[in-house]
Every structure is written in C-alpha cells, then in structure tokens.
C-alpha cells in the first residue's frame, strides 16, 4: 500500500513516500515551503503540493495513493523582544570621538576654540587657539589663513575640520599640530570654550583624552568634576582621534533605564528577578521554577513592555485573547547594541547593554484535523494524523546509520529548539525551548548595527572572507582563494560573505575577526545554551551522562558551524553527537515525515501478527 508521511514545519513542509507491505520500501522524499502559519488550515495547500511532488519524483500514480499521514504539530509559537538597558547621553555638546580614516598631524593640543573666520581677519587671540573650520573652506585657503595667523603671532595648537581634509592641511602647515576632520556637526561646536584635541600616531589609540585623570589634568578638574567626565573618557576609548570641549553646563550622563522585574511562576513557586541582573541570573531563576507556567513583566517597565509585545504578536497569530496566552519558556541573552550617542557631533556610537528575550507560547490546540480532512478531499484518499512531532522525529532520526536507542534528537529550527528522548524501553518524552535561528539573526543584526534582517541572515548562513585584491580573497580560516575573473570593485578590500552567488559585502567598518566573533557568539549563546537546556529537561534526573546518541535535525543542523559547536559542547559528557542522516541519504531533513511512515508500518505489522 502506498503511504505518504507529511511534516508541516514552521518554514518547510516535507513529505516521504513509501510502499508498506509487511516491510517498508522508501521511495523518495521532497520538501516545499509551508503555506500559512504552522498548525492552521492554510497549511493544506503546501501539504498537497508536497505529496504530489513526492509522488511524481517517485514515479507513482497519484490515483494509487492509499494514505496520507500528518504530524500533530506542537502548537508552539515563539516571539522575540530586545531592549537596551543603558543609554549614553551628552546633555551639552562636549565631545567628538570618532575615527576619521585619515586625521592629520599627531599629539595633543589644548586651547580655546575659535572660528577660522576670526583668524582670517588678522586678529590675534591671546593664548593657545584651536581653529574650527566650517564647511565650504578649501584646504589651500585653510592652510594659508592658518599659516598667516601663526606668522602674526597666534599660538595655534590644533584644528577641527568639517571636510575630509586633515592630511592636506597638515601637509601645508608650517607648524605641526593635531587635526581632526570629517566632523559632521562642526557648527554645533561651542566657540570660545576650553578644548583639547588628541590624534594618536598611526597604529595607536589616544591615551590622554580616553583616561579620566588625563582629562582631569588637561582641564584642571576637581575630583567631583572628574567623576562627571569619566563617561566621556570611556566613550573615547579605542579611538585614533578625539575632541573634548568643556562647556560649563556640559556633562555626560550614563543613565540606566529601569528595566523592571520578570515574574516567573511554575512548580508551585513564583520568583521575581531583576532583568538588570543579566541573562545568567535570569536563566538560573528560570531553572528553579521548571516547568514554567507563565512569565509576566512589571507593568510600566521595559520588561513589561517586552512581554506585552510578545503576547500581542501571539494574539494576532492565534486569535486567542492575551489573557489565555501563557509563556511557557523564556531565553534571556545579554547583548549589546551600538547606538548613536545623543549629543555627539560626528555620529559617534556607544555600545549600550541590552537584553534579548525569546519567549515561547503554547496555544490551546491546533487545527491539524481540519488540514487532514482537506488534504483527504483534495487528493481523494484517506488522510489522518499519524503521530506527535517529537516521537516521529526520534523514529526518523533512528534511520541515521550508526544510531541506537536510547537516542535523543535536537531539532534546531527557526523559532524553537526541540528535544526528544526515546529510551531503550521505547518511552518518548519531548520538550520545546524558546530561541533558535530567528534569534541568532536578530542578535547578529543588532550587534553589527546592520539594521537589515536579510543582511544579517546572510552573515549567519555563509562563511566570511576578506577581498585582498581583484583576484583573490582570504577566507576567515586564513586560506586564500584565487579567481580567474576579476572581483567587482564594490567588494574590493571589504569583508564579504561567500554566498553561492559570489561575495556579498557586509556593511560594516568592523574587522573580519569582529564580525566572525559576533556571528559565532550569537550561535553559541542560542544553540549551545539551548541544546544543553533542552536535553537536561528530557533526560531523567537531568544528567547528560546517561545519553549515548544525540542526533541533530532541522534547518539549523545544515548550518556550516552550529553542529560542530553543539557537538563540542556535548563531547565533554561522553555523548556521540552528529548531524542526522535520515535513511542514510536525506541529511537532517525529513525525519518527522519518515518517522510517520515508519510508525504506521510497525503498527500495521503489529496488527497483522
């Protein structure tokens, strides 16, 4: 009899065709895009497409089809929220700390800010002067005016330019002074105020203005004032050039936004945890209230807003009222978000701390029976729900060569990470935890300040390289690759993702090492953390030592590095871990669809005997 198993997942619908007559003869597998949201009647169309395609590939007549088996989709939906918990604000314009690619001169200059227009008039201000050059001034004219001013007796100690002209002006000046250029908001620099400019030699970073006591020395500050300017020093660390202008009312505040408390209830307890405390503490508290019944946030705080946002999304998707929606798992991750400093003059960014929360909601049931009825009508054959997702996944995973019971599977998808365990006795337990591929994409997007989900997805999926010439790239592992056709100039000297369509530049000034670190850390914090967390929940007693075989399944098991990272983390527990290879041919795909067919066949055999 001809049977097709169909697995409707969050993003793909997979089908597996088999002839079941005493034994099982697998005829082929296929996949297509899921139509509609998983667990809704809209899935019918994708399921029918998958079945037809699988039959066509196997060369079987659709008329002869006897039975379609669907999985009971676990009604789990995930949501994400992210909120910064610190913010750097400069209340009066007091600093410029950016890295123009080419500052001029080097050293430190301390003096009073004066517009170049004043110097052009032949006036000689008393004391050391820092020239501020507005837009529209040509570099030759700037150098001419400054040279004349110096001849007339002006003590010129530094200059701030609007255009990218610092090296040009420095080359034409008869005195050697530090020059900072590409200052976008030059017109907002307070004039007639004490200021300091520092430019570090090539290959170095500034030393004085990025040090609190350095600032105190330069501006002759009291201990109280030094405390106030220490955020300035911190914001300037790592720059090659910087400007600090001291305005009487100017100060930088490092304000902490009240994040609020997360209320976790479960296992007969209710725990409150400050989100400020960081992801580790939150996860520790969460472990103590397993299994979680619900999570709420203090209204009027950030965390309250974040969870409300998740609930709202769920309400839209499921049509249930927000009171009915219960958050059954939370994954908290410490992250940082580059944000433009309010009050900065050259688009400076500060890394603000943030917390990302992935939350998982269990809905009150799925519409799988409706989907089964519709599939049956469309194909003119019987269709029924053949089994629960987790159990079916384990059965499918068992067809991977080299596996045996007890076996655990980790299904790493887009929205949630699922674990299931099949004991030697044939008992199956399954859990779902929040956070998977989508969260990784979101972390990469915000930490690299890409502000483009598709670009972040590309960074996640493909290895990096640096284009070193028109004919070769150096991959992130240090090897080089030669090209016979010249690479496009738009990728020259850039960090790129090596996609199948060629190198795609990553829009960042960060080094390849930084981008790689962000990518790997995002994957580690989501998938490695979740793999351990999910497996501990399915294993009796929570000890990973009793596990022998762990099989990785799902779209993220096809990633070029996630399986290795998870395997490394599990190796210490004496576990054999690897990517699933369903039927020895299908890779980590099609496990659930195959499991459905397999489960049906074994039942049929049991009935027959």
């Amino acid at each position, binding site marked *: 009899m001809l049977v097709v198993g169909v697995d409707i997942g969050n993003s793909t619908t997979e089908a597996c065709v088999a002839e079941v007559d005493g034994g099982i003869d697998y005829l082929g597998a296929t996949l297509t895009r899921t139509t509609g949201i998983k667990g809704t009647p809209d899935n019918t169309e994708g399921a029918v497409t998958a079945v037809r395609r699988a039959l066509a590939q196997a060369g079987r007549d659709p008329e002869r089809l006897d039975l379609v088996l669907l999985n009971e989709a676990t009604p789990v939906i995930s949501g994400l929220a992210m909120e910064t918990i610190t913010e750097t604000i400069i209340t009066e314009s007091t600093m410029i700390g950016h890295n123009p*690619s080419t500052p001029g001169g080097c050293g430190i200059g301390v003096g009073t800010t004066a517009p170049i227009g004043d110097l052009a008039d032949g006036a000689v201000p008393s004391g050391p002067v820092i020239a501020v050059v507005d837009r529209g001034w040509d570099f030759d004219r700037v150098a001419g005016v400054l040279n004349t001013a110096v001849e007339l007796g002006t003590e010129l100690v530094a200059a701030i330019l609007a255009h990218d002209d610092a090296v040009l002006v420095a080359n034409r000046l008869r005195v050697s002074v530090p020059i900072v250029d590409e200052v976008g908001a030059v017109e907002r620099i307070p004039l007639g105020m004490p200021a300091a400019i520092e430019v570090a030699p090539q290959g170095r970073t500034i030393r004085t203005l990025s040090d609190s006591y350095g600032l105190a020395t330069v501006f002759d500050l009291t201990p109280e004032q030094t405390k106030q300017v220490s955020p300035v020093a911190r914001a300037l660390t790592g720059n090659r050039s910087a400007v600090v202008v001291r305005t009487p009312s100017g100060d930088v505040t490092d304000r902490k936004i009240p994040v609020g408390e997360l209320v976790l209830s479960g296992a007969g307890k209710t725990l409150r945890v400050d989100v400020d405390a960081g992801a580790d503490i939150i996860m520790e508290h969460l472990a103590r209230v397993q299994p979680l019944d619900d999570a709420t946030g203090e209204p009027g705080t950030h965390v309250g807003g974040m969870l409300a946002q998740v609930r709202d999304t769920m309400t839209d998707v499921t049509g249930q009222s927000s009171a009915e929606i219960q958050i059954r798992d939370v994954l908290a991750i410490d992250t940082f978000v580059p944000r433009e400093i309010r009050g900065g003059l050259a688009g400076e960014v500060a890394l603000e701390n943030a917390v990302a929360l992935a939350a998982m909601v269990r809905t009150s049931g799925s519409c799988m029976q409706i989907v089964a009825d519709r599939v049956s009508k469309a194909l003119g054959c019987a269709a029924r729900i053949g089994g629960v997702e987790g159990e079916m996944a384990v059965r499918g995973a068992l067809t991977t060569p080299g596996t045996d019971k007890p076996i655990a599977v980790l299904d790493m998808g887009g929205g949630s990470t699922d674990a299931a365990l099949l004991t030697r006795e044939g008992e199956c337990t399954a859990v779902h935890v929040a956070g998977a591929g989508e969260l990784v994409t979101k972390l990469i997007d915000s930490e690299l300040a890409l502000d483009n989900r598709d670009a972040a997805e590309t960074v996640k999926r493909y290895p990096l390289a640096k284009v070193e010439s028109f004919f070769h790239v150096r991959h992130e592992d240090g090897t080089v690759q030669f090209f016979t056709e010249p690479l496009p100039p738009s990728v*020259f*000297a850039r960090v790129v993702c090596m996609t199948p369509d060629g190198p795609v530049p990553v829009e960042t000034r960060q080094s390849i090492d930084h981008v790689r670190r962000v990518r790997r850390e995002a994957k580690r914090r989501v998938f490695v953390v979740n793999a351990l967390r999910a497996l501990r929940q399915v294993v009796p007693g929570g000890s990973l030592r009793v596990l022998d075989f762990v099989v990785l399944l799902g779209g993220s098991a096809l990633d070029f590095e996630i399986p290795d990272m998870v395997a490394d983390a599990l190796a210490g527990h004496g576990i054999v871990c690897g990517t699933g290879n369903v039927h020895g041919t299908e890779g980590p795909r099609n496990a659930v669809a195959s499991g459905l067919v397999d489960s049906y066949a074994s039942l049929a055999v049991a009935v027959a005997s």
Partner: protein
Amino acid sequence: MSAIEDQDRPAVLVRHAPSVPADVLRQVCAGIEEEGVLHDVAPVHTVDEEVYASVLAESLAHGAALQSRLDTGIGIDGDGGIVVHHAKLPVHHPAYAEQRPNRNASADPHAPPHGRRAGTAAARLVTGLPLPQQQAVRRGRGDELTARCSAML
C-alpha cells in the same frame, strides 16, 4: 609632485587631456594626497578629438596603470570625466569612474568636490581600503574607438 622626473617613484599616475579644468586636476591630486599616497601628473597631447570622452579616460587610465609602479592610474578627459584603473583589470572594467557633474542636477552641498572621490579611490586601491561609494555609472563605449585610443598611447 610635478612632471615625470623620477620614473621609478612609487606613485599613482594621473594622465589627462590638456584641456582638463585645473580645479578637477587639483581635487584628484588632493584625494590621493589625503590618503597619504604619492601621485604623478602629466598631460597626454596626442588626442583624437572624435573619440568618445569616456572611452578616452578609460584608456588613459589603463595606460597609466600599466606604467605605474603601484599598478594604479587615473585618466581624465577634456570634460572632466574621470576613470580610475588598476593594471591587473581588463581595460573595459575600470575600478572606479566619476562622471562629470551634471550642471542641471542640484548639487548635494555635503558631497566632496568633483574629482576628490576618484583620487581617494585610486589611493585606496594602493592601500587596500574599501573604495568610496560609486555613483550611478553611465558609460558609452565602443571597441573600435577604444582600439584607436589604445593605439595612440
């Protein structure tokens, strides 16, 4: 920085039609200098007036790149169209092109003066930094005309 006195100096070679506006030339040189790279400027006199301007800049740039010890050259035609070339690139695929500014279009007050970006691009080919954003490219090219240009150089 004047004429071709020291052929061996590692420099970006700038080759231009004699009628290039002085300010364009100055900005191209400024772009190179700001990035800390040397340049060497000389006019090329054997110009066939019928030749398409953009093709001329392309061939001038490629010829200059082949002569440069840094493998990098800039060609400027009489109207101020600029092409940046690298010796290892095919003649029709220059590294960077900066069109003559369209006088009708309202100029962006924050944009660098014409020629500056091309100079920056040439210097960055040498130093191995990402090139400035390329403007929309419009090129007219014909192989026959290019062949005539190349023959002249």
